[in-house]
């Protein structure tokens, strides 16, 4: 290893990058744009599901019931004509569920007779369906207790509390995750292209012909792209702080170690893809579509990793974004530091070393393929 040669290779890479003004602008404008779009738009908290109500009872009870459903943040009650079948209402697609309150419900309740309320729920969206079920059950329990003949109090009273983000501020959940997605997507793309472009244009032959070794060649490119990736990281986090006030909740040291590791992993992944593929189009498909989709969908950015089948939970251990999301959420929301995140840091370091070897192998002879 000759550090001067690595340094020269790194400077050459940065100069090429700077010369292409549009790419330079895009490398910073696109991550920032993505942060703003994702951070402002994506919310998982279910809200405003339209629910059609057919009230055959028209009693104080049914009106109370409907207004309570409507008062929940999750559902909006819409009064539907009584002569259409619930199935037809769902088929028309304007409501996600229908609730039928049969005639005589209030009287049945007061007399202590069972009073079923029927609901047909559109389960094409399973999250909506589950939420509707939870709210209907809670509402019938509450309103039913008010109108029914008095009975024994419930055996168990549950008091739930949510720590760290008690206000349920969803930006605090989404934004630290978007950091991971952005750092998974853009440095990888830039690195894959930086590597494969040399091959496609044939300029890699000059590197082969020089005294540069494979490890130095990769280290030089890696250093340059690591700098670019860290600059991107700094830019998006400054904006996260300015727009959503996302700031360190505790000891920032694990995060400050984790971020270079994460960028390092993704740059090495990009270099590996670039070293294995021959054309920009294939490199892009691999780094752009596969890496982006996996980093968004298997990292726990939206839906928790723990809900996946066991096999996929294991697979997700090799996705750097999965570990980085844990580190990032801990740094910005929980703030308890080392005890919860040291395993993630270790995993990132491991992934980085494996990828470094993987990128080095196809280039180690520094020769054109036979």
């Amino acid at each position: 290893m000759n550090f001067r040669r690595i340094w020269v290779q790194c400077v050459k890479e940065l100069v090429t990058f700077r010369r292409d003004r549009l790419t330079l602008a895009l490398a910073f404008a696109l991550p920032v744009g993505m942060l703003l779009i994702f951070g402002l738009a994506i919310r998982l908290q279910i809200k405003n599901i339209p629910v059609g109500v057919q009230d055959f009872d028209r009693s104080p009870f049914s009106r109370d019931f409907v207004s309570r459903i409507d008062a929940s943040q999750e559902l909006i009650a819409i009064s539907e004509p009584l002569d259409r079948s619930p199935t037809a209402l769902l088929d028309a697609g304007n409501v996600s569920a229908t609730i039928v309150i049969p005639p005589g419900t209030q009287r049945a309740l007061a007399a202590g007779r069972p009073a079923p309320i029927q609901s047909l729920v559109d389960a094409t969206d399973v999250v909506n369906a589950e939420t509707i079920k939870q709210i209907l059950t809670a509402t019938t329990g509450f309103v039913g207790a008010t109108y029914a003949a008095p009975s024994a109090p419930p055996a168990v009273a549950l008091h739930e509390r949510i720590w760290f983000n008690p206000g349920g501020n969803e930006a605090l959940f989404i934004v630290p995750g978007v950091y991971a997605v952005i750092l998974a997507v853009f440095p990888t793309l830039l690195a894959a292209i930086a590597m494969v472009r040399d091959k496609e244009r044939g300029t890699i032959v000059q590197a082969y012909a020089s005294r540069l070794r494979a490890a130095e060649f990769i280290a030089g490119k890696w250093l340059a792209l690591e700098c670019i990736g860290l600059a991107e990281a700094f830019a998006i986090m400054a904006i996260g702080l300015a727009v959503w006030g996302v700031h360190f909740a505790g000891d920032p040291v694990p995060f400050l170690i984790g971020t270079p590791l994460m960028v390092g992993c993704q740059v090495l992944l990009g270099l590996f893809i670039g070293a294995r593929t021959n054309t920009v189009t294939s490199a892009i498909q691999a780094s752009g579509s596969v890496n982006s989709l996996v980093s968004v969908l298997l990292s726990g950015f939206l839906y928790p990793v723990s809900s996946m089948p066991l096999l996929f939970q294991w697979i997700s251990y090799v996705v750097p974004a999965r570990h980085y999301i844990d580190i990032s959420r801990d740094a910005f929301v929980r703030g308890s530091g080392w005890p919860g995140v040291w395993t993630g840091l270790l995993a990132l370091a491991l992934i980085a070393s494996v990828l470094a070897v993987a990128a080095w192998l196809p280039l180690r002879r520094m020769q054109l393929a036979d």
Partner: protein
Amino acid sequence: MGEFSVRRLLVLLRKEFVQILGNRQVLYILLFPPIVQVALLGYAMNPLVKHVTLAVSDESRTPASRELLDAFTANGVFVPLRSGDDSTASVYRAVQSGTVDAGLVIPVDFAREISRGQPGDVQLVFDGVNSFVANLGAGYANLIVSDYNARNAPAAPLSPQITFAYNSGLLTAWFFVPGLLGAILMVTGILASSSESVREKDEGTLEQLLMTPASSLEVLLAKIGPLFVLFTCALWAALAVSRLLFGLPFRGDFALFMGISSIYIVAAISIGILISTFAATQQQAVLISVFTALPLMMLSGAFAPIQSMTPFWQTLSLINPLRHYITILRDILLRGTGLEVIWPNVLALLAFAAIAIWISATRYRSQLR
């Protein structure tokens, strides 16, 4: 220029087909990932919270408290993590450090309160770092407790009878696969078409192409052709795989489905071509493509609900072709409804594809300047 000539179009089509089919690596990379991704992600992704790890401190140690614990862990939503130390403090510490998702504390006087006719208080603490898990988990916990209460009390007078329509088993794959199909076609379509068509510019062959008598529209249609065939094959294969693996139903009209999917695929490809008219190098084309494709995917309702967005983003999502295509897919595949319901979405897709092709065609000739 001259008018539109079918013969010229056929010649150009042949050139594009030869070019794409000649590159095996591109062929594999365009065909296989969509199929594999639909299969894997459809199986892996689960928007319903499961396996929430739960630290438990049962200071009551009575039959009543054990029964409540069993109720909590019966259906796989909560998974208890037992450790040697089950004091209340250690439960709080576990939630604090993020090693568990939630902590349940059953106090000493739990059973005593119940036997006195008072509700027994239990405390459930969630790690709110993942607010999605915390919210849905809290909802489940309430369902579990109200079930538990109902078991030990005379039948509740008011009970909802809930029937799930179209997907009675709440199979998550049926929910995700339509979204995945649309999203993957969109991401792959944009990336492949933008990088393929900017390549001519990169290699300098675009000038030769533009010097021929062919019109911009002919060149564009020829560029769309091979990718269109490839993605249609990928769609069929992905659909067959999801039917095989997940039993995904097909309740609507197949011809209608194919017609609409063609419009959608053309729309996705033309977004890519449109991007390529703005980009000078493949690097730029790729960056812009990823930047376009990911927001289109996330703001489509495939993974994150549209009704939860602010009105501004909801309105904006109306120009997202993926949003319309997913609505259509869920309608045709799961609900089995036809044009009478989805015609506004179909119109939106048509308009989108037409506008994208028209802008690309007008920009195509002037892009070299």
